[in-house]
């Protein structure tokens, strides 16, 4: 069966954004994932220290499982490097200070643009130091949040990103929507496919203080429930195209993945097509 030709990515066809600014989203976590070629030897590396210029705060080694992790707080975020067979992850997420703050608001690093800038600053250093090995596949991941006053408001907001779906904002709960909208890349001759996975939901968070005795449990305090729109992005190169991609090519490819993620965060997964249909 002939392969269906995928539409190319074209910046001219990007739909009007649902939100005015990407910074209406807060970045709880940003991720770079690389799948190294088989020749890459598995073991501890000194990348974290070389990239950041400071000592690792916490090193976790599980040699029997071939798992290695370095992490530390940097400029308002926590940067983690994880190595395991077949996979390298760089993750920028919340800091420890926010972790232990009782009654704190939703855990976020900062606004999306600032988080992206910080994350790419360290990734760029990794690329420039020629530490990135050849990869057979790579991915950009993100967890983005937008606090709302209640579930209904959250569903109303999400409806703007998902015009293909009818949500009853008042009478619904536990709604989760996940979709992949693959595209052909503008790089590597256009024969190279990118999966654009997005997952949309409204989360509820709350905290309760409880007193536990030998024969009783009392709720002694309860915070007002908090709601947030949550968008999980997984933008990745398709598994059936295995490069390898040299260290020199990876930065440009990753930029493309990040750009596609931003487009979804601004315009939803249907972006261009839906908009062109709406104009008819």
């Amino acid at each position: 069966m002939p392969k269906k030709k995928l539409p190319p990515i074209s910046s001219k066809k990007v739909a009007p954004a649902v939100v005015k600014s990407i910074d209406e989203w807060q970045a709880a976590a940003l991720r770079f994932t690389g799948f190294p070629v088989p020749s890459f030897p598995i073991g501890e590396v000194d990348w974290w220290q070389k990239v950041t210029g400071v000592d690792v705060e916490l090193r976790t080694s599980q040699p029997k499982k071939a798992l290695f992790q370095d992490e530390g707080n940097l400029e308002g975020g926590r940067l983690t490097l994880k190595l395991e067979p077949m996979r390298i992850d760089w993750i920028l997420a919340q800091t420890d200070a926010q972790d232990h703050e009782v009654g704190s608001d939703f855990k976020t690093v900062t606004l999306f643009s600032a988080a992206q800038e910080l994350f790419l600053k360290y990734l760029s250093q990794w690329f420039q130091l020629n530490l990135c090995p050849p990869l057979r596949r790579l991915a950009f991941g993100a967890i983005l949040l937008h606090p709302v006053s209640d579930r209904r408001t959250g569903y109303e907001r999400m409806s703007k990103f998902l015009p293909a779906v009818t949500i009853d904002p008042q009478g619904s709960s536990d709604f989760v929507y996940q979709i992949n909208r693959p595209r052909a890349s503008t790089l590597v001759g256009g024969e190279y496919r990118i999966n654009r996975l997005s997952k949309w939901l409204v989360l509820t968070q709350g905290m309760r203080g409880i007193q536990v005795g030998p024969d009783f449990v009392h709720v002694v305090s309860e915070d007002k429930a908090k709601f947030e729109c949550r968008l999980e992005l997984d933008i990745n190169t398709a598994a059936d195209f295995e490069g390898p991609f040299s260290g020199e090519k990876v930065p440009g490819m990753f930029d493309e993945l990040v750009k596609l993620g931003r487009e979804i965060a601004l315009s939803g997964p249907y972006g261009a097509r839906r908009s062109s249909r709406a104009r008819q």
Partner: protein
Amino acid sequence: MPSALGGRIDDLVRSCFALGKEERFEDGMESNFSRTLLSLLNKYGSNFVHSLMPLLVTKRVNAEVAGEALRWLGASKHSSSHSSRRWLLEHLLLNSSSPHVRDGAILGLSFMHDASAIPSLKSAIEKEPYQELKRDIGQVLSQLESKSQCPSSSEKSVR
């Protein structure tokens, strides 16, 4: 992979290799070990391969049993785990210090008929110290370069 499932598969992997340690293998013949290995692969797919990797990569199993495992992993037609199995075989071919393991990896790759392995085989033949294994790699290379078959697998999510 959820940690409970991963833990269970890890236990099964260890049991499987404990079984293999007690067996005597005959070239090309199935064994209780190979049947158990393939049964686990068919049931758990790539999750099983991922559980197997640390054991083989960190040399925590008998080299002969490891080589036998790689041979049967390559021979399997389980489609969704094809990519991860091939990566494991190529990785061990290029990085293992054991000739038994490298031999098993070469044999496994010969069964996979996947031309994507050609670059790794070319690298391996350059650095292989044993002539017999060098010859074997050369044969697999010739086979793949003449056939150039390349099955594909699809995995959309990277989480």
